[in-house]
Every structure is written in structure tokens, then in C-alpha cells.
């Protein structure tokens, strides 16, 4: 039969000599490899004290964006929900009333917006589908929890902090990637 790769090595079945039968040389060789690793660079880090930088394309927890005046960008157009392959996103739309212009950017807004993080596969299609710059995937993980109901993320959890009222929290939520974009 033709070999699939050229890395094939036949097993050596010759009778072992006395030195080989002692196994001491083989053990010593193995220990040498083990001990040499003490002096090599550690590939692991002490998480959670230290964290690695995120990749520029990392897709973490979702965030619902606001504009510069702090109005919600989302208009509940449903494109994220229809793009979602896991059907994790659901929403209810409502009409903006007179006097709510400072809360919502457009005539229609999402009264309820939920992402089921148990269903979400963090593929980022919602981010791509959004025509209103409203949903982004941030640089945070979904934290672990004991109860399933904690994973239904509602608007309170998803909305970015108000850029004018909670400036510090907003800057933090923007993350490293957004800061780079500003220049």
C-alpha cells in the first residue's frame, strides 16, 4: 500500500542490547528534555491576574451603541435577528413618543431587546447586518453563572453607558479597538 505521507517510520524490532535493556540511558534522555523546559520561556500566563491582549477581530459580548448625544442607535429593524444563525436575538419595537427624542435616535426603537447568550455562537453576523451602527461585539467574555436565566441579556445589560452622563464608563466600554480608530 502506498504511504499517505513520507513521515512513515518502521518500528524498530531488533533485539535490545544490555545497555538498552537497562533503560537508564532512555530515562536520562527523557529527564534531560523535561529539565531543559525549566529554562525555556513559559507559554502560559497567570490568568486572571494577567490577561492577554485581544485580537483585533475578537468577538465578545454584544454591546448596543449610542450616538454622541447618548441616543440609542437601534431602530429594531430586525436585521440582526434575521441574520442570526442561532436565533438568539429577539426584540419588540415601539414608536417614539414626543419628548423622547433625546432617548432614541429614530422614530422607531427597540422597547425590548434580548440576546440569549446560551444560544449565541458569537459569529458576528449581527454586527455585520446592522445598518444603524447599533450592535457591536466587545472585548469581554460572557461571565460564567450558576443559573440559565442570567444568560438572557436584556437592554440594561447590553446598552453602552451614556457618553455624556457616565463618560468614564463609556470610555471604558469603548475598549481598545475604538480608541485606536479615533486616532
Amino acid at each position, binding site marked *: 500500500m502506498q504511504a499517505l505521507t513520507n513521515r512513515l517510520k518502521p518500528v524498530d524490532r531488533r533485539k535490545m542490547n544490555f545497555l538498552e535493556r537497562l533503560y537508564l540511558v532512555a530515562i536520562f534522555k527523557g529527564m534531560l528534555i523535561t529539565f531543559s523546559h525549566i529554562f525555556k520561556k513559559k507559554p502560559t500566563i497567570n490568568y486572571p491576574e494577567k490577561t492577554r491582549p485581544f485580537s483585533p477581530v475578537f468577538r465578545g459580548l454584544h454591546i448596543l451603541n449610542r450616538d454622541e448625544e447618548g441616543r440609542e442607535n437601534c*431602530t*429594531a*429593524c*430586525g*436585521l440582526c*435577528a*434575521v441574520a442570526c444563525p442561532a*436565533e438568539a436575538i*429577539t*426584540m*419588540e*419595537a*415601539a*414608536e417614539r*413618543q414626543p419628548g423622547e427624542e433625546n432617548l432614541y435616535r*429614530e*422614530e*422607531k426603537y427597540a*422597547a*425590548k431587546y*434580548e440576546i*440569549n447568550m446560551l444560544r449565541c455562537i458569537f459569529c458576528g453576523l449581527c454586527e455585520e447586518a446592522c*445598518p*444603524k451602527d447599533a450592535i457591536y461585539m466587545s472585548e469581554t467574555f460572557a461571565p460564567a453563572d450558576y443559573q*440559565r*436565566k442570567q444568560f*438572557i441579556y*436584556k437592554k440594561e445589560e447590553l446598552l453602552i453607558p451614556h457618553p455624556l452622563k457616565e463618560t468614564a464608563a463609556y470610555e471604558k466600554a469603548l475598549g481598545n479597538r475604538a480608541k485606536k480608530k479615533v486616532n
Partner: protein
Amino acid sequence: MCYYSKLEGSGGKCRTCLVEVAAGSTADPRPMPKLMASCRPTVMDGMVIKNITSDKVIDARNGVVEFLLINHPLDCPICDQAGECHLQDLSYDHGKAGTRYEFKRRTFEKEDIGPFIQLHMTRCILCYRCVYVADQITDKRMHGILDRGDHADISTYISKAIDNDFSGNMIDVCPVGALTDKTFRFKNRVWFTKPVDAHRNCENPKCCGKATLWLRGDEVYRVTARKDQWGEVQSYDNKPGWICNTCRFDKKKTGDWSIEGPTTISRHSVIGANKYKTLEMPADTIKKVLHGRDPKLLMNIHNVSGVNNPNIHLSEIDRPSHMEDFERSGEFVKGAGESTQWGLPKE
């Protein structure tokens, strides 16, 4: 965009159906010098028409679409027509993604034209279909086009409310989102609702009583006339199946209708996404596998989620929903949604 076979005199307004006439007829085989709107001229023996085989036609249509989109607001994320909008389809077919227009778009003052129909004049492409509906289907004409050219505006004269029994059909004939159903406004996106064919015995002799219901769960969110493959109202016995306002706006319960089956949706339409072809639920095999025991569900989504709350019936609100409609769900206490059928412990 403007021609509607069920409306007499329609067509010839939007110029999106331009074709090249390579030969006029057998008697006079000369080509016509200019592109013709295919909805208006009469067909002659020996006529040769070039449609998409002519570069001139494609180029002219692209230009027409660009002109139609000059003043169109492109607020598809908000518009209720998105998903079944003919201008959306047309611009995807012909238009370019970018725009060369740098000036202010045409805007209008908002006008209330009655309790059932929402008019968004900025979205209007002036196809005149709704005016023909008012002329030909309703008893007396209540609205028309005022002013000319760029300022042309669809309005009810002296802001008269449209109260005719068949005025709702304007919503169905509107190719864009200029006339939309106020009772459905912002309730849901078209592609999340499930269209089913249904009929009822309407008291109105002119109403055909055959309609498409757009459901979410068992709630009737919207009623429209049945559409054929060209997006026009279907005909029954050579009569177009217009429906009356009672059927359209007042009968929002499944009990009012006899449901025939799911509407056939073109597989190219977003409306058909994630829909089943039959209304019957497939048999649940889990119980059989578990020897008659119900599966133990760890969470009833309605206990946690505020979306699609079983205690809120949006179909019963005859206006767009507001925040307080969802906040009324405060009455919905945690225990209300739970039931023993889920096998959940009471919280």
C-alpha cells in the same frame, strides 16, 4: 412600479419598465426612436421588443432607479414595507449602492390621513396607484395629488379623513412604504410574521372576504388582501379581491377567520425565511423516547424574557405600540407565566 393590472389607467408614470422596440409591427417594421414604457403601448402583430438584451434599456433603467431613489429617504430599517417593498427589490436589481446626490432630500410636513392609514410622503414615488384606488374602488374620491413636479404631494383635500370602506386597499397597492397600516405600524417586521391564507363571510357585498393574515403565534398582527406572483391583489372570478376596512382593520382575532393554510411565499423572498410549509406541528418524539415522561425543562423562557410576552396582545392595540404597553407587563408577575406543564418549580 406604477402599473397595476387591476386599476384602470394606471402605468406610464415611473418609467422603470422601459423597453426598446426593435420593430414596431409587421405593417411598419421601423424601430421606435425612443425607449418605450412597456406598460402603456398596445401590442401589435410582428412587434419585436428588446428587454434586458439591450444595453440601452439596462442603462436607462439604472438611471430611472437612481432618480426614484434621489428623494427616497432609505429608512428601510424603520419602514414597515421593508421585506415586501417593490422599490427595495428594484434598487437591489438595478440601483447602485452609493448615491451621487449631495443635496437635501425632499421632505414634507407630517400629515394624519385617518386612524387606519399612515402616510409617509417622503417615501412616495408618485405612482398614482392609491389615487386610482380612491377613484375606482371607493365610492367617492377623498384624496389626490396636490401641486406639481417635485412638490407633488399626496393628501386628502382639506385634510379630510379617509373614511371609505375600501380605503385600506391603498396600503396594498402602494409599492413603497408611503401608505402603511397604522394598526400594524412597528408591531413586527414582515419577515418575522407568518402569513396564512384565510377567509370569512364578510357582510359587505363588495368585499371578497379572502385575505392573508400575518400571524405571530396565534395573534393576527396584520390583514392584507391576497397577493399574486406579481405582488398584485389576486383575482377571483375575474374580479380583483379587494377587502373592506372591517376585514382589514377590525378582525384581528384568529376566531374571526377560517384559516386555509400557509401562504406560498417565493423562496427568494426574505418573508419565507425560517417558515414551515405546513401548519401542523411535527410529532414530538422526545416523549416517546422517554417512555411517556415529559422532558424536564430547565427554564421557561417566558419567565425571564420580556419579548413575546404571552400576557401582552399587541394585535389588540389599534395604534403603534409604545413603551408603556410593554411596561404594563408589570402585571405579568414571575409566577404568571410559569405553569406545571413545563415541569418547573414555582418560584
